[in-house]
């Protein structure tokens, strides 16, 4: 495993995530545009599509909020994990931000001075399902991140209660979180883990339905309810308030049922690198 090669790949992925709208997200926005009849909402969707095209050509960030960079690292059992590897990936993200003139949006939460590129958040996981090393770069914008929510339900809560909480979270998010959204949901685990799962759900293909039958039905029900809210692209009304709802679940405690919601804006960005070992 060549460390400098990994750093270079990470830098390239940062640019890709920031300049090129994900094809799956683009597909759903295009679909929403074609079926929209509200003229202002249609205009909003056209702006989004034109902007994505311009960003790709000009090599400029789709959105000026180039996000707080989150990195998901997944390693097979053959990968030797070291502090050096993690530091290299973090440095690759920082340099990728700097070299591509992305925004220095990271500050100390109390002092709020000297915005920089330092403060990349890394999550490390091991998986037997992959070969080599998988690195996902996820720059998360904060207009949508600010609308995240967590609710610790009673274990006896109905699916309908959970669905209503998710719909209410999206309704509260409103026009300022940059709809049409992709809504990430995490069910189970602990309070922190449900929110992490919700974030991870945004990394799944948004144009593919869930392989779990119950979750697939829930996703469909929630999406239908959300798209009846009438918020629409940029809050201009119309048919599409959300492009997709993505749910992930994991086992939890008999006493609890944590549900986390992470809202993704229409400029949902990520890029994946697969490194062979």
């Amino acid at each position, binding site marked *: 495993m060549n460390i400098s090669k990994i750093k270079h790949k990470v830098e390239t992925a940062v640019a890709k995530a920031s300049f090129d709208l994900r094809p799956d997200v683009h597909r759903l926005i295009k679909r929403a545009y074609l079926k929209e009849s509200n003229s*202002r909402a249609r205009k909003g969707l056209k702006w989004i599509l*034109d902007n994505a095209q311009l960003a790709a050509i000009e090599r400029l960030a789709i959105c000026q909020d*180039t996000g707080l960079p989150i990195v998901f690292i997944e390693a097979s059992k053959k990968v030797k994990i070291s502090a050096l590897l993690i530091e290299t990936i973090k440095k690759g993200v920082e340099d990728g931000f700097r070299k591509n*003139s*992305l925004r220095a*949006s990271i500050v100390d939460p109390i002092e709020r001075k000297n915005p920089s590129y330092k403060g990349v958040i890394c999550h490390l996981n091991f998986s037997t399902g992959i070969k080599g090393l998988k690195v996902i770069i996820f720059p998360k914008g904060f207009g949508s991140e600010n609308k995240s929510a967590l609710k610790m339900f009673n274990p006896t809560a109905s699916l309908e209660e959970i669905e209503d909480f998710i719909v209410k979270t999206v309704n509260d998010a*409103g026009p300022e979180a*940059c709809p049409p959204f992709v809504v990430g949901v995490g069910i189970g685990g602990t309070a922190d883990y449900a929110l992490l799962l919700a974030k991870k759900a945004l990394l799944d293909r948004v144009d593919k339905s869930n392989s779990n039958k119950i979750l697939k039905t829930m996703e469909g029900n929630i999406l239908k309810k959300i798209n009846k809210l009438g918020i629409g692209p940029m809050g201009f009304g119309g048919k599409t308030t959300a492009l997709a709802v993505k749910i992930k679940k994991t086992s939890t405690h008999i006493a609890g049922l944590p549900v986390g919601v992470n809202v993704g804006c229409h400029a949902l960005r990520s890029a994946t690198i697969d490194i062979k070992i």
Partner: protein
Amino acid sequence: MQTIKVPISKKQGNALNAGDSILLTGVIYTSRDQAHKRLVSLIKKGKNLPFNLKGQVIYYCGPTSTPKGKVIGSCGPTTSSRMDDFVEPLLKKGLVAMIGKGRRSSKVRNLIKKHKGVYFIAPSGCGVLLAKKVIANDTICFSELGPESICELYVENFPLIVGIDSKGNSIYKDLR
């Protein structure tokens, strides 16, 4: 589509209605969270502001770094409601228009009505589309705030929708 030039005349401003699509041409000033905090703190202390707000337009925006050879980087609007608590002293100093994204509080809507101002919505998450409309870009103060510094932009045909008009009508429901 109607083109509006800065400074926006009283007559032109009053004729705008929530929902109107317009193109804005002229000077606008970027300012967001920390710059607002500083401006309002200067006003409270009775000190001079780094620029005259009379008749001006503030754009809630923190652009990316400017790539070599370009006028500006990606420069879309940020969430306006975070600036809601800072609006009144700025309007009192003569601010006429604000550009951003999303809903405002009822208080801000009423202040806009009282001061005959206007709140514009810019295409959110469309920072490149908007960058193409920026002809000039100069940092005028608070440069240590990086993307939160105040920049004077000259924009041409900047596409906007009237969010709240001088009569206090809004295209959105109030935030709270």
